[in-house]
């Protein structure tokens, strides 16, 4: 470790706004551990976020931090990255932010294969505004705007990013920070657009509305699995059979796809990026 997770926190920003039991804290801690292993300090790291509970966490990290508008973090991040190609740019977004209002930017950032990492916290709801229906809410789930249960199908964020052209796509869970750590490491190593969907929880709204119990109960709902859940992560044993409520699905975790086509910066011939044929 070159520094500690704790040393990368902005202590003066505490207390944070996350609710007790919220899965986002686990994901943030995992991110911090990964960053602490890679850097002495975050002088050359920019964390760019949109709007929502997950997006707030960038403010707690002692980096160049940019809290933007709803859904548009990837656009600010793209401009910053093209202006300063030497920076490591990491986007933190939520499912409503990144797939609802900001879905267009996600597919185009993926298509361009711009060299940044996008971490999408998927808690299947709009937490900050009070637990409304999200494009990721699974069918039948209750939210404050689907009082009779959701009737819409949900997005598979990782499949969407893959189809749009992301050259690295992974998925992790707040339930398995160990596996998530490896996925994040691999995503940060990747050159090109790396997308990591992280299944996390909203205890306060999604959990309560769907009677899923407290924070730890809610985490266990991610353990449901009838299929192979771990891909391309050598060491991780398969997860325990699910105890969660049937409405939640567990999708494969791990590195789902990776290829080495040229990053946008390489096509533009930006400093630090050798021009490759597109």
């Amino acid at each position: 470790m070159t520094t500690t997770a704790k040393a990368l926190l902005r202590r003066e920003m505490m207390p944070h706004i996350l609710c007790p039991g919220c899965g986002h804290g686990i994901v943030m801690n995992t991110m911090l551990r990964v960053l602490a292993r890679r850097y002495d300090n975050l002088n050359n790291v920019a964390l760019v976020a949109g709007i929502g509970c997950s997006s707030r966490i960038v403010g707690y990290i002692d980096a160049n931090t940019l809290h933007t508008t709803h859904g548009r973090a990837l656009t600010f991040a793209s401009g910053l990255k093209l202006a300063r190609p030497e920076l490591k740019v990491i986007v933190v977004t939520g499912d409503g932010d990144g797939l609802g209002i900001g879905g267009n930017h996600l597919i185009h950032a993926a298509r361009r294969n711009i060299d940044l990492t996008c971490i999408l916290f998927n808690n299947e709801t709009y937490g900050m505004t009070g637990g409304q229906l999200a494009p990721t809410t699974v069918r039948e789930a209750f939210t404050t705007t689907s009082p009779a249960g959701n009737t819409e199908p949900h997005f598979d964020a990782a499949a969407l990013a893959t189809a749009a052209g992301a050259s690295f796509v992974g998925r992790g869970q707040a339930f398995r920070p160990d596996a998530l750590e490896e996925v994040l490491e691999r995503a940060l190593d990747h050159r090109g657009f790396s997308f990591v969907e992280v299944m996390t929880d909203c205890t306060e709204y999604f959990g309560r509305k769907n009677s899923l119990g407290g924070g730890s109960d809610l985490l266990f709902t991610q353990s449901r699995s009838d299929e192979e859940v771990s891909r391309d992560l050598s060491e991780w044993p398969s997860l325990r059979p699910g105890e969660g409520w049937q409405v939640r699905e567990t999708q494969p975790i791990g590195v789902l796809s990776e290829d080495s086509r040229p990053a946008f910066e390489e096509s533009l011939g930006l400093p630090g990026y050798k021009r490759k044929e597109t």
Partner: protein
Amino acid sequence: MELIQGNEACARGALAAGLKFFGGYPISPSSEIAEILSSRLPRAGGVFVQMEDEMASLGSVIGASLGGLRAMTATSGPGFTLMQEHLGYASLAEIPCVVIDVMRVGPSTGVPTAPSQGDVMQARWGSHGDRAALALAPASVAEVYDLTVQAFNIADRLRAPVVVMFDEVIGHMREGVELVPPRPEDIWRRPDPVGPPGSGHRAYAPNEEGVAQMPRFGDGYRFHVTGLFHDERGYPSTNAELVRQTLERLERKLAPVPFWLPPEKYRLGDASFVFVAYGAVSRVAREAVDRLREEGVAAGLYRPRVLWPVADAQLREDLAGAETVVVAELNRGQWVDVVARALPRSIRIVSHGKSGGEPVTTDELLAAAADLQPRSVKSS
């Protein structure tokens, strides 16, 4: 001397000012700006990127500006509407950037791409909240070039978004011009950060002009930028007093701009009958003034180059001698309210608005003048 159109002058002004990033989305009648920059900007060591929409365009511009580059986008009414949220963001987060709005008839898709000055109030109030706005209005091809350079200067010095707005006539009109590139000493810089990086650093501590003294991203300062109201460290705050003070400061810092770029006063000295006009309309108003003068009418033209902010005292003083003021605009009457608010009731104020996509003509203004029966020079 060369013959170029307004949109080309805009692109070249931006390059002369040191533009290094353009993020845009195609829309008539502004597209030539993007087209020209797509070939010239990379050759000048900059980055051109065509984004997926106008929100993304201005988002990318703000990101590039945080990285320290002079950055710009260009659009027209429908795209300008989509940019409003990010204009508000750039204002509150104090990120310098330039937005070019080549105006066409609206609302909605309207009349593509007939000329209009319909976005004047949108530039002022289009973004939600009590935002202080900056908008410049060139009236010739040469002035498009000059004011584009000045837009970057003002954006950097005051750390604010600057809109340069002109109608389609100015954008597509070709004029013979002698473009004079700014000298290095004519380029204004952003305020330097105070002190070295460290725990005591305050990215949003204002200087004596009320401007945040922020570093670029990636220079070791590790600060926070947000569209939430924030303290001097950039950390979010809901303190009502802080909110009030911030809004006041953001308005106050823009106040000098109408004095840096003073209005043009044409034959205004003894004028009792005054046209107030900007952009393309000011060109026919100037001709109307000459024709009225030939008829002995004490006519004059007042042409603001800065539409926002407005210096009420400046307007009052400059138009103190007027008896009748005709505000001629290529819209249904937008800036006229500004004039009416600033001037005493003793001055007759008439709105000459025109919509539909056809330009205002000299004959129209003369007919309007005849109806108003201006006094002649002799009888004054």
